């Protein structure tokens, strides 16, 4: 249905944003690319008093590398993320994630900051930044905060953002790592029934700091501690992959949803674990 009646204000800079937010108080709803928020208006799932448009705030733009981190501005659109050379070099997991996010027309508008702030449990980017051990940089009238991605997603559609606080950027530590993302969706571009974003290092033939992060199977991105531990320090081979798959049952507590019961989601997660981890092996090492 048509969107509800509401106000609209556009902030030109961060100081301007703080004054607009102070003026509108709890009636204010930040809008960036709007690809989720505007759809929720059509469903009347939200009825904001005033939309506060942040898309023209220059401080929230840009992708750069400095002091050992890749910094991605919150207003970076998915399409920009997907074609950026610095992202492809330093965080190819994000480059790989972009084609999985909705459709081209939506990727041209949706932003990384919006995706993280909305915190849909089936979205790709929240899982990716947890897998990459990123830091979410927030901004508010009170100043900047830096929140580890693993602490940022607190519950279903809930984040550590305070009222009046926005995401300014995401910082990803530069590191040599292997990473991959895969998901199972009913149709291309749909939200995933289950997905896995994984990152790990292999040093001296051993897995170091594996981070298996599942999406679409919980209230947010799920960092699978036991499955990750089953890989740590071991050679990546059929036995350790099977151990990770076995341990996964303890990590996941998927809710039943439209797609099927919890056990189906666990099954999909195990399948994805095999696909992703086998993808890190040389072809000759993959168990038949």
């Amino acid at each position, binding site marked *: *249905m*048509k*969107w*509800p*009646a*509401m*106000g*609209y*204000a*556009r902030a030109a800079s961060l100081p301007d944003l703080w004054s*607009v937010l102070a*003026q509108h108080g709890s009636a204010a709803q930040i*809008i960036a690319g*709007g*690809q989720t928020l*505007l*759809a929720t208006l*059509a*469903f009347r799932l939200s009825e904001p*008093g*005033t*939309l506060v*448009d942040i*898309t023209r705030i220059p401080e929230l733009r840009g992708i750069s590398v400095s002091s050992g981190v890749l910094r991605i501005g919150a207003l970076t659109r998915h*399409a920009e993320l997907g074609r950026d050379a610095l992202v492809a070099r330093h965080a190819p997991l994000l480059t790989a994630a972009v*084609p999985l996010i*909705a*459709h*081209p*027309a*939506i990727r*041209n*508008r949706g932003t990384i900051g919006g995706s993280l702030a909305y915190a849909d449990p089936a979205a790709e980017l929240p899982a990716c930044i947890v897998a990459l051990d990123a830091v979410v940089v927030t901004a508010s009238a009170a100043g900047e905060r830096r929140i580890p991605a693993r602490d940022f997603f607190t519950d279903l559609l809930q984040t550590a953002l305070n009222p009046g606080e926005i995401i300014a950027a995401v910082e990803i530590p530069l590191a040599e790592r292997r990473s991959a993302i895969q998901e199972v969706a009913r*149709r*291309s*571009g749909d939200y995933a029934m289950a997905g896995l974003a994984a990152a790990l290092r292999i040093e001296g033939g051993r897995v170091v700091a594996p981070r298996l992060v599942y999406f679409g199977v919980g209230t947010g991105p799920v960092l699978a501690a036991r499955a990750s531990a089953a890989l740590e320090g071991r050679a990546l081979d059929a036995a350790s992959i099977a151990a990770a798959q076995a341990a996964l049952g303890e990590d996941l507590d998927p809710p039943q949803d439209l797609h099927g019961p919890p056990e189906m989601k666990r099954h999909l997660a195990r399948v994805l674990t095999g696909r992703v981890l086998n993808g890190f092996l040389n072809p000759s090492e993959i168990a038949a």
Partner: protein
Amino acid sequence: MTASDREHRSASEERSVNPPQQRISLTVNGERVTRHVEPRRHLIDFLRLDLGLTGSHAGCEHGVCGACTVRVDGEIVRGCLVLAASLDGADVVTIEGLSDSGEVADLQANFVARNAAQCGFCTPGMIMTAADILAHAEEAGGGTPSRAEIREHLSGNYCRCTGYQAIVDAVEDTLKARHLAADSDLRAVPALQSSEASR
């Protein structure tokens, strides 16, 4: 009070009373347009109801069907997921403008030849998205996207009819014809260069 003071003051006054209307000035199909719009107006209703450009269709109105696909600042977007109020200064191209420009005349001819309209409701959006495939294929230079790649790109325009075989056929025909034309242009280039060198 200077003109810029007045402007600044009127902007902040507008904001403070939560105005029902926003003034936007933008380009639509090459023409400058200035209107006052309610914040609840999405781009498709703005085009259809305020400007009378009814080629872009309002289908699902929550971002799923793609019948409302238009270009904003050169990129395809969902018109139903864009606030008209946010478009001050934007450059919008609809199916009317794209069609009039001749940019997709070959694609449209192939849609007719292949009978690719299906029920027809999705067609304007399909043409807008297919034009995006053609533009990206030209940017990427060389190579014709596969049918799977065409389907992937069109996946955001799936509506109700199902199938889309004829649509994929029409897009594929256009890609191949343009690719062939580009190849023969390339072959023509050395001749051009040598004739210039000889001058």
